[in-house]
């Protein structure tokens, strides 16, 4: 049975859909994903499952599920810094980590209550870009660059 896998990468502008047999296995999926980057990619790319820290998480999957979300990147880790009110929190994440997960981690580290966090967004430092919650951080960092800085900003504030 064919399934659709959703691929993000540092070298792709948008999410690509990879159609593959559900029992194809990790190696064939990796190969099919590499084809989406175009011909002649000599460098090594690693394939990660969305929001999974375990590099070998593919081995735990009995088959490729419909709607699996993956990421291809030349790096195994991306250094993330989140700035808020003059405080910085930092740690390394897999490139397949979603903006939503980074935001949950950062707000927890900063001690921001979950209900307050719902009014906040991550903005890529030095830009107006506020990526969607399902964007992988690897799409924001093209190797050899390995660091991304976010400003945690609230929705517009009104005091009267």
């Amino acid at each position, binding site marked *: 049975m064919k399934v659709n896998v959703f691929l993000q990468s540092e070298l792709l502008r948008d999410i690509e859909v990879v159609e593959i047999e559900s029992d194809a296995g990790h190696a064939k999926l990796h190969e099919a994903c590499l084809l989406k980057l175009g011909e002649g990619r000599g460098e090594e790319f690693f394939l990660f499952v969305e929001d999974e820290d375990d590099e070998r998480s593919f081995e735990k999957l009995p088959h490729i599920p419909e709607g699996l979300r993956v990421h291809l990147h030349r790096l195994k880790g991306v250094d993330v810094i989140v*700035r*808020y*009110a*003059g*405080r910085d929190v930092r740690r390394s994440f897999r490139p397949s980590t979603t903006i939503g997960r980074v935001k949950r981690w950062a707000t927890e580290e*900063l*001690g*921001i*209550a979950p*209900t*307050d*966090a719902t*009014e*906040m*967004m991550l*903005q890529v*430092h030095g830009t*107006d870009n*506020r990526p969607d919650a399902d964007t992988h951080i690897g799409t924001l960092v093209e190797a050899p660059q390995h660091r991304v800085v976010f*400003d*945690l*900003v*609230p*929705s*517009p*504030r*009104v*005091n*009267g």
Partner: protein
Amino acid sequence: MSSPMKSLEFGVGLWSALMGDLHHRGQGRRESGAFLLGRVTDTAKVVYDWLTYDELDPQSLKYPIVRLDSSAFAHLWEGCATRQLEVVADIHTHPHGPAQSRSDRAYPMIALTGHIALIAPNFARGPVMPKDISFNVYQGEGRWHSYYRSDAAALIKIL
């Protein structure tokens, strides 16, 4: 037992300069505000500098009340990094009394538990003393503790 609340400390001249700046920027007709930047010690939050809302978002003075766009906060974090200071409080003016409005309570400028939000009455028309201010401490999830008059004055130290 909860830890004692940290006082907010201002150096000589800083308090009156801040009130003068807020009054000047609001021109006695509209609300104005600022983020207070400083350092946190074991016993106090010490103010060294401030960044006004209109410096961070020039559009903020278009309204009779305070409105700050999200992008203003990225500029604020940059200002903190440049000065190696953090936001220790915010302050804005009201046309009349210092009590928090509904929007003041609903939209904390900084959503950290323990963050201090001051409100100066009469558009900060001077002289404004610490006892004239409301001293509001964010508790998270939309909850605040507010202090007025002598209780507020006890938490603001002008050194």
